[in-house]
């Protein structure tokens, strides 16, 4: 069976973010790009599913500017994915990205299970997986921390508020968006890295998918850094004095009690 994983390339968490002069985005000079952390769980689960079902293949798919996004696809290949496709496109939103992913998956003959991360840490939107599932007319579950496939249906656990979990069964094909806890992603092996370097990544132009510009529904503007926080007020004294002073400040100065 065919298993797809949709990944996104994002700035590394440690990267310092600077705003572009026209405030329509961030200054990408000097940014270290990595695979979205939640997508690593998705790649790992896809690999595990393939390994448990001989004859299966893992296809990893990403939308973005080709030149840099292929690096994250190579990371996924080094982790064990079999094939990779890059959709070359820029200036897209969640909906148009989801449509592109769905179109490419359809063109490749569909998939039994499609994995992704529960959200991308750049815009925190947690939207693309559900939109893609809708465009493919298949069920989805997000925030998944446990996955099982019995040959026909998938059984997953979805993390919800208060530490509670929903146990959800879906008919396949199905979209599964991974949360932390689903697995421990494997490190890329040296032979894996060597193999990934040589692999030919299939290229698709976003423009060739015939998705109209009117399918871009959301635009981000007015990028700004958060306001500077006033310096911390340190409370000195022994433990008793510190405790009573803090409560006083929270009540009388911060007024949060």
């Amino acid at each position, binding site marked *: 069976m065919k298993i797809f994983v949709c990944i996104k390339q994002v700035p590394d968490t440690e990267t310092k973010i600077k705003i572009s002069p026209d405030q329509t985005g961030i200054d990408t000079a000097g940014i270290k790009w990595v695979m979205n952390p939640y997508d690593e769980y998705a790649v790992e689960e896809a690999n595990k599913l393939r390994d448990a079902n001989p004859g299966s293949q893992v296809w990893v798919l990403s939308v973005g500017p080709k030149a840099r996004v292929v690096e994250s696809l190579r990371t996924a290949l080094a982790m064990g994915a079999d094939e990779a496709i890059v959709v070359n496109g820029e200036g897209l939103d*969640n909906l148009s990205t989801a449509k592109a992913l769905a179109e490419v998956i359809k063109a490749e003959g569909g998939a039994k299970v499609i994995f992704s991360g529960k959200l991308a840490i750049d815009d925190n939107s947690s939207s693309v997986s*559900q939109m*893609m599932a*809708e465009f493919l007319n298949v069920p989805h579950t997000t925030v998944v921390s446990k996955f099982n496939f019995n040959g026909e249906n998938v059984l997953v656990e979805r993390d919800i*508020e208060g530490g509670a979990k*929903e146990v*959800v069964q879906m008919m396949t094909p199905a979209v599964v968006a991974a949360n*932390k806890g689903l697995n421990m992603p494997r490190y890329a092996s040296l032979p894996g890295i060597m193999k990934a370097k040589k692999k030919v990544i299939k290229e698709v132009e976003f423009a060739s998918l015939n998705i109209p510009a009117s399918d871009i529904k959301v635009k981000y503007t007015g990028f700004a850094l958060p306001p500077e926080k006033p310096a911390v007020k340190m409370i000195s004294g022994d433990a008793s004095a*510190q*405790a009573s002073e803090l409560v006083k400040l929270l009540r009388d100065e911060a007024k949060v009690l």
Partner: protein
Amino acid sequence: MGKILVFAEHTNGKLKRSAQELLQAAAASGNTVVAVAFGSHAGDVTAALGHNGASEVHVVKDAALDAYNPESFTANIAAIIAKVQPSIILASASSTGKDLFPRVAARLGVGVASDCTSLTISGDNVTAVKPMYSGKCFATVNFENSSTKIVLMRANQLPVAAADTSKTANVIENAAATVDLKTLVKEIVKGASEKLDLTEANIIVSGGRGLKEAANFKVLNDLADVLGATVGASRAVVDAGWVGHGMQVGQTGKTVAPTLYIAVGISGAIQHLAGMSGSKVIVAINNDPNAPIFQKATYGIVGDALEIVPKLTEEFKKALHH
């Protein structure tokens, strides 16, 4: 002026604070506010929906909608949207809201702004502001080519005034939409805590490695009980198995924005700061004066957490009883 549809989440018939926030913001804009509530207890919230600003309420009182199912919820909300024709939809960026509305947006061919922290409604247009790159910057979300604009707001971002009990809403009962379900929610396994979720909590007390061992979370639980707070944790102690992942605040855990966040024995790795820097007032208690958490804190205490926290609990007890 147009109509704003508010998806009103409730717990067994008790309206969530996040729903009150959205209803009151919608009503303040001068638009007509239409609320939607699902499930066998939906009838119990219609009065509260009216008190908070809805003039019309659509309910689907079907027990099949007591538990969230993406397919049935999408079909039912889409049917009501088709009837109401709102220009704006407001919902909470909760487990349900974040899962449901992107799918609804794809079905309707409209835009969705998820995880927003403020919104500006003018006439039947809306823009929203959301944190980007783990709160390192903010951006304004603008809609285009979108007949309906969907905004999902984080909880505790908008003010809530006392509800006006003289106001009532016109209640419309809807039959449940028929859906050929491919998704079955078999069971809901309850979490250990009956408290408010971290993402909804107004006060959070979080613990890290500085607590030295798992058993010492007891001192945080005692403090949280006095404050009516929810207990969170750093990634280090979740990975060490002291507490469950549901309690993790930060990059690979939950993003929280309470009024008061008390970080106990947490050094403040960037992954942790990413999840809590939106908190209004931050208290840091740590034995290392150079811990990065102090750079984000409003108030800082250098000292032994195990010595200070029990004293703090006693002080809060006194302060809150007067």
